[in-house]
């Protein structure tokens, strides 16, 4: 009898618990529906969202200019299942520093193809003005849930320009924890790039010939390859109803041809005399060498980002990245954006600061006494000590039909630094800065 009573009580308790559980389930379902309802107001289900933009980029002193249209189309099957296609085209024109130092004499450089030459006047920064390129890049990504706790994404891309081709695949896997307050993500990217330089692949640290009849030109191969493997491990954490934070650790390895085939180094005379600090000459011609970088690189980075929405709906987005690699480069990046939100418009000031230390093999120039003993060297200022600053302003206007027009204007400033040159080279500007402007105009529909 007692057993019977306890059984009845147990069933009743179970039923009550079941009822509570059902109620909790119902509430969760209702709140989830509400949440997904809220967010689907911005992502209409089973529809295409298109974001199209146009970038104008222009550097001071007639250096590089770029025009870059982009169209990205996303099909939303449901809140978490999406298919994206993106196409980017860019056209670059202008001149790029070739790595040589300015001089108190006129300098003549062989063009990358060896078919022509170009000059830098006394005191002028040597710029290669044969630089012109058009690139097309296509990419696609698919992301979907696996079940309640797991989601995945896969993608691929192809980018092609006349002297470069890149082909890549990527995938990521996410695990939700703590009622989706914590997300762990593991991403992997593999890519294979082929470099087919104008004039063939030059021999690293070889003296640049005067023209293509030289044996250095005739023995060149047409192309080289490089392979990249990137892995990113991330933790995204919801802090509270208005704050979300992310930590990432990324590892990137590249191997193969990592040299820039168009960059060179000047050899400077360091023997005492009237030409101390001038261009070293051999056979009556200045000696310039093709640069040479290591054939592998391992980069690691730590990234932190936080987004917070204030009570007045303004949004602050701050991030920090520390990167270090086995080339000796360390860098710090801080990026901050603050979006002032009005009824159907926003205004977003942006600031970015970046600083890097030079690669171990970076040399602004080589000297006549040691250039034959050098195994790796580059004078590419992008591998030197560098500080950069970006200031920008973005504005967006949302129309009644949920389409949006936006524009962004930003200024980018670079400051390079390094050792002063020897002798008469010290009076040359070895580390010129760079200023550029960027204008983006876009429409989302």
């Amino acid at each position: 009898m007692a057993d019977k009573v306890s059984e009845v009580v147990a069933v009743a308790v179970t039923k009550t618990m079941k009822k509570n559980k059902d109620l909790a389930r119902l509430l969760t379902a209702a709140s989830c529906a509400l949440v997904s309802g809220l967010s689907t107001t911005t992502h209409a289900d089973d529809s295409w969202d298109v974001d199209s933009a146009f970038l104008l980029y222009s550097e001071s002193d007639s250096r590089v200019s770029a025009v870059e249209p982009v169209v990205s189309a996303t099909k939303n099957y449901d809140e978490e299942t999406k298919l994206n296609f993106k196409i980017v085209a860019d056209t670059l024109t202008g001149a790029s520093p070739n790595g040589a130092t300015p001089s108190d004499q006129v300098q003549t450089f062989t063009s990358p193809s060896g078919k022509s030459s170009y000059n830098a006047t006394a005191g002028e920064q040597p710029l290669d003005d044969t630089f012109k390129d058009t690139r097309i890049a296509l990419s696609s990504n698919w992301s979907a849930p696996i079940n309640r706790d797991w989601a995945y994404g896969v993608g691929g891309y192809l980018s092609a320009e006349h002297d470069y081709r890149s082909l890549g695949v990527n995938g990521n896997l996410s695990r939700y924890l703590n009622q989706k307050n914590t997300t762990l993500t593991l991403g992997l990217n593999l890519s294979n790039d082929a470099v087919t330089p104008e004039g063939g692949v030059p021999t690293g640290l070889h003296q640049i010939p005067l023209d293509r009849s030289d044996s250095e030109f005739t023995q060149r191969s047409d192309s080289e390859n490089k392979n990249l493997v990137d892995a990113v491990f991330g933790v995204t954490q919801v802090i509270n109803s208005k704050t979300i934070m992310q930590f990432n650790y990324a590892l990137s390895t590249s191997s193969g041809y990592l040299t820039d085939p168009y960059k060179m180094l000047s050899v400077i005379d360091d023997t005492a005399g009237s030409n101390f600090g001038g261009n070293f000459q051999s056979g009556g011609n200045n000696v310039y060498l093709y640069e040479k970088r290591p054939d592998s690189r391992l980069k690691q980075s730590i990234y932190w980002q936080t987004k917070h929405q204030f009570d007045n709906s303004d949004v602050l987005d701050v991030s920090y990245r520390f990167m270090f690699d086995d080339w000796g480069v360390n860098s710090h990046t801080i990026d901050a954006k603050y979006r002032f939100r009005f009824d159907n418009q926003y205004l977003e000031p942006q600031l970015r600061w970046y600083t890097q230390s030079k690669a171990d093999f970076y040399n602004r120039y080589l000297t006549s006494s040691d250039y034959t003993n050098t195994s790796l060297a580059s004078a590419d200022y992008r591998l030197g000590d560098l500080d950069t600053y970006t200031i920008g302003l973005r504005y967006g206007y949302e129309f009644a039909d949920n389409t949006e027009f936006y524009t962004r204007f930003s200024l980018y400033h670079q400051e390079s630094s390094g050792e002063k040159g020897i002798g008469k080279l010290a009076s040359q500007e070895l580390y010129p800065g760079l200023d550029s402007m960027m204008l983006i105009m876009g429409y989302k529909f």
Partner: protein
Amino acid sequence: MRGVSGIFGLISITIALTGCSDLGVKPWERGILAQQEMNLINEPIESSLNDHIYFSKEASSGGQGFGGGGCGCN
């Protein structure tokens, strides 16, 4: 897959122990976080254009996503 699950399992335990499980919100408190503006990358086109410029002008790339590549500019 088992290896990946293992890594995720290990990290999950670490996070639980370090107290991340105390943070967060209930499903019905996600209204603000669900706004498009609160996505970590809420303007992907602008981010990709910026990443491309910085990739071609500086020695670092990636961090938020993959390290990039795909152009001969660096």
